[in-house]
């Protein structure tokens, strides 16, 4: 549930707590009312026009690294495994 997408803050109006975020060339106005200390350059998770939370770059990289590691381990063991389909 709860469609949300990460976008980068490119501008903040401190008076209104409204920010401009950018996502793949699209700019959108969102409210920062739900997050503290968001800065220009931060990535925030956008949901119904609000930033829900900041994203952690570090954690994202660690997750990706872990995924690569989990996959690689396997890839060496069972190259080309083809699990059967089930809908």
């Amino acid at each position, binding site marked *: 549930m*709860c469609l949300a*997408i*990460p976008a980068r803050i490119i501008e903040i109006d401190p008076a209104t707590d409204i920010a401009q975020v950018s996502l793949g060339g699209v700019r959108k106005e969102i409210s920062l009312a739900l997050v503290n200390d968001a800065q220009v350059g931060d990535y925030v*998770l956008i*949901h*119904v026009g609000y930033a829900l939370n900041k994203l952690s770059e570090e954690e994202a990289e660690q997750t990706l690294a872990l995924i690569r590691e989990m996959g690689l381990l396997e890839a060496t063991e069972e190259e080309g495994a*083809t699990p059967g389909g089930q809908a």
Partner: protein
Amino acid sequence: MKYVDEFRDQKLARQLAGAIAAEANPGRQYRLMEFCGGHTHAIFRYGVQHLMPPNLRFIHGPGCPVCVLPMARIDQAMAMALEHEVRLCTYGDLMRVPASGRRSLLKAKAEGADIRMVYSTQDVLRIARESPDRQVVFFAIGFETTTPPTAVAIKTARAEGMTNLSFFCNHVLTPSALRTILATAGPDGVQLDGILGPSHVSTLIGSRPYAFVPEEFQTPVVIAGFEPLDVMQATLMLVRQLNEERCEVENQYRRAVTEEGNLKAQALMAEVFKTREQFEWRGLGFLPRSALALADTYADLDAEQRFPVDIGEPKEVKGCECPAILRGVKQPTDCKLFGTLCTPENPMGSCMVSSEGACAAYWSYGRHRAPAPQAQAL
């Protein structure tokens, strides 16, 4: 798109699929409930189920706010729009949800009800400011993700002294539903080996509220993001817990979810809302302390009090298996109406409306059951 494209990588997916297949013990079943419709959607949209070994099955949970909204609440909103002639603001997702008598907000709008689709509670505030002579009601739905934006609007309405805006509150609480699912699981209900925990809800509430799942129900939880690699990694993490006979709350979605969640948003919710004694969930029945109402200090902004309506007993469509599907005990294909009388154009139940609903997801992405040609190529 940063934080998006990386988590949709085909090559990594293939590798993760290989790892899951390798690690899954062919001698046992892995029945994993993805709680969230967001997971359901990702599983179908990206064909994740195709990548799993046959003994690993995803069971679709009740985590779609549109799907669990009981028909009576739609009937109530429609009555506010038609009888009290309020300007009803709502998210687009609700427009086509079936109400009693095969009606819907879309049809009520066509018949002349003043219904506006909004994308954000910021729009609701704008609409109310622009039409001070008109009573505006926001038909608020959603889990803890969507609740804080409603809280912001309520506080703003109060701060600006708006007298023409009120809130029809249908926000529900995830942990409560999870508890019900687990409490009724077992031989007579759904059989579950593990839980893919909520993604964006957890962004707000943190990972702590799930501690009861392993403690009370001896079921592992992995909080998972909504991108397909997130789902696959979390699946592997669950497989490993089960294989290793661990049972804990793990967090795959670390880039957005912390232990404590968003404290500012939590404080806001605590101020503006109170917990209802009970609330009806479609399919799950009346669940105790599972939903929010406006706190007493904001009761004057409560649309249910400002615009009381008298609706009859809502009439569910005969044969619709949404309730069982939402409890995880049936699949869309078990419903006789699926694909015959019930299609996304003519939904009979709410699960056929939201793209997160199991029936809609199944219809859009899973209907064609011949093995997809590229499944062979993997």
